[in-house]
């Protein structure tokens, strides 16, 4: 039965134009595919009357947005609106379907963004540092790439004729967005300057090159994020930052390559971004920072002005939805992770709230009947919400508990040394204080740059290995359920877009072509 199923998949894939696959090659021939399709089989037996096919799919990824981050950001957003906060729900928390996904990679108990995003967009788990290549690749060895490439959901969508886009507040060549379009044995090969000598000598394309030279379908339509210097040569001055230049050593200005496309635009600041007419632009490239974009909390201070992640999402949808066949869009809140590494919870939570705003924009601009939206994280961080703070206690503040009558206690909860402590803390990171714990009584722990205390001293806080949540809405969202491998996201998206070769049970006479 499994072989018959795979034959059907093979036939469907062979029929896709421009995919570059030899006839007879299955969909990512891997044990992960068997398990993923089996999981879909089980899920399909639930919610039999839900629509399966989507015209559009939007995947939101909060990099490092584990469950504790979501909970804390939910409370912070609620408190910013003048409420206790715990009862609040971020936009995506109202989605009807939810799963926990396991983020381990082939060789890591606690993973990094490269294999986790690879799992999400290809349906196959791989090793640390690897982008859209399977586990037979050796990290950093370009000679092991051929034959081990994995097809991504973005590539499949392009081959099917959909419009595609990627948006990130990190560099657009960073691991999470890069896994959508690039195949690299090393996530750090973002420009030719980072390639190993051997890879450079062999002409292996760096990640930025793979973006602008993307050859599936008619090319990626929308690319918005940071990382400008990875596209510009070292001989060229950066337009925003005096004294800075590009970092490419091959002399190439990849933004010029982008502009060769029909009705293409390249922008690098807010004013130019706002001026882009989505009805007249077919290929939009926006690189708003030399490296990563600003944290949301700092965005107003940017030199040339940056759009928010919500604004980038809106513009992307406006461009992409002109495509009659539909679109695939990936949006990443890429700096939640960075703020956690710095041990700075407030910036991480503000960026999480900004991502939730972007999801809200997507909800407003799309129709649940024809658009599947998934929201998830690649991995978690070691942020904890601890103590017994009373309902409505400042999530960024010090713990105030209830007294023995269940009323708000007088004063802060105290540790063994009679000192207060915050609700939020990290298991490790730069917030470690040497010697005795500080007395936080008169410290503004809600200050933007306050570093929460950490139990183990590390200059950078680490990822965490627990499961992350996957929220789903729209066609085939009902397939998201239970405890799953992180690869499930790919199979849910592929099924919704009809890219897995499996028939839909949708009754178009009931729903119409779309609705």
């Amino acid at each position, binding site marked *: 039965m499994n072989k018959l199923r795979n034959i059907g998949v093979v036939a469907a894939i062979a029929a896709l134009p421009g995919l570059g696959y030899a006839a007879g090659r299955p969909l990512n021939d891997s044990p992960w595919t068997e398990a993923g399709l089996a999981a879909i089989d089980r899920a399909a037996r639930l919610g039999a009357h839900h629509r399966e096919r989507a015209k559009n799919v939007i995947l939101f990824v909060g990099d490092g947005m584990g469950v504790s981050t979501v909970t804390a950001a939910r409370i912070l957003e609620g408190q910013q609106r003048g409420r206790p906060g715990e009862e609040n729900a971020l936009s995506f928390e109202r989605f009807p379907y939810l799963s926990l996904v396991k983020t381990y990679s082939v060789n890591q108990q606690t993973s990094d963004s490269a294999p986790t995003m690879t799992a999400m967009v290809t349906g196959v788990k791989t090793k640390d540092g690897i982008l859209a290549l399977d586990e037979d690749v050796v990290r950093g060895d370009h000679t092991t790439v051929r034959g081990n490439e994995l097809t991504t959901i973005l590539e499949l969508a392009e081959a099917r004729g959909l419009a595609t886009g990627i948006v990130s507040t990190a560099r657009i060549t960073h691991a999470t967005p890069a896994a959508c379009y690039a195949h690299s044995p090393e996530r750090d090969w973002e420009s030719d300057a980072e390639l190993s000598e051997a890879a450079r000598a062999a002409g292996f394309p760096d990640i930025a090159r793979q973006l602008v030279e993307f050859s599936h379908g008619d090319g990626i339509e929308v690319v918005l994020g940071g990382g400008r210097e990875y596209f510009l040569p070292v001989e060229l001055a950066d337009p925003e930052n005096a004294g800075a230049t590009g970092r490419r050593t091959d002399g190439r200005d990849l933004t010029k390559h982008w502009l060769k496309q029909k009705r293409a635009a390249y922008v690098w600041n807010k004013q130019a971004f706002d001026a882009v007419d989505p009805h007249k632009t077919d290929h939009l490239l926006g690189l708003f920072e030399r490296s990563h974009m600003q944290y949301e909390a700092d965005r107003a201070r940017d030199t040339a002005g940056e759009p928010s992640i919500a604004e980038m999402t809106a513009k992307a949808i406006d461009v992409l939805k002109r495509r009659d066949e539909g679109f695939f869009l990936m949006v990443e809140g890429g700096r939640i992770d960075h703020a956690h590494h710095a041990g*700075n919870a407030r910036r991480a939570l503000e960026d999480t709230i900004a991502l939730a705003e972007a999801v809200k924009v997507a909800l407003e601009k799309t129709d649940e009947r024809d658009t599947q939206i998934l929201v998830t994280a690649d991995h978690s961080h070691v942020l904890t919400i601890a103590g017994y703070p009373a309902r409505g206690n400042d999530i960024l503040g010090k713990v105030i508990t209830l007294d023995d009558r269940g009323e708000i206690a007088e004063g802060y909860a105290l540790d063994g040394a009679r000192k207060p402590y915050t609700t939020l803390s990290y298991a490790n990171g730069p917030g470690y204080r040497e010697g005795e714990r500080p007395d936080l009584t008169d410290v503004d722990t809600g200050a933007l740059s306050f570093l929460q205390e950490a139990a183990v001293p590390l200059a950078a806080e680490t990822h965490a290995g627990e499961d992350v949540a996957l929220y789903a809405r729209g066609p085939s969202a009902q397939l998201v359920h239970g405890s799953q491998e992180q690869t499930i996201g790919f199979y849910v998206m592929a099924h919704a877009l009809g890219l897995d070769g499996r028939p839909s049970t949708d009754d178009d006479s009931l729903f119409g072509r779309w609705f």
Partner: protein
Amino acid sequence: MRRLRSLPFVALSIAALGTTALAEPPPSVWARYVLLQKGAAAEHLVLVRAGDRIEHRYLERGETDLWRRDARGELEHLKLYPRAGRAVHFTPGDLRTISLTPSWDRLSALVSDRERAGLVAEGSKRALGGRTATVLSGRLRGQPARLTWLPELALPAGLSIGRGEARVVLRLVQVDACSGERCAEAPRGALRVLEFADLGDMEHDPFARSFLHPPHGAPTIGATSATAR
């Protein structure tokens, strides 16, 4: 066990204390200091002050801390490690996030106006080539200190902090106006520049690991910023 303070820690710790800016920009200089501590080998620091760029060059270890200030006063920081072929770049946002926001005048003069104002003048003397220096004493960062200040150059001719075996002495041994190659920006064309924000995801990289997990006793970025607060 007595903990020896490294030169970068001293320079950065001093520079990290908040203060008001100088009323007029100090002259561009190239200045070489020697750092002396009992029980430790002498280290040399070259301070380059050139407009909106300041460099602290640690000669023995071959490393440089470069600070730039833009038109809005925002700081940008680059740590150069030529022997490792690497540099680490801190954006203004990174510096704010880890509370590493030293004042410009402290970076450029090692001692701020406010700190000097907190010391008591004891008199004047001649220093380094016959320049007039003001001698001040009092406490800096909670420790007894003695400063020999060159107002013409807005630089210490000498600075002593602490007492006994923990005492650290910084002494100016050479100073020139900033010109030519000597004050050109420290070269980094051959260095691979890493963003500070990326280091948390680079546990696999030996350089990033050594940067994030320095030897016991050496300051981490986080520890420095926490201490400076």
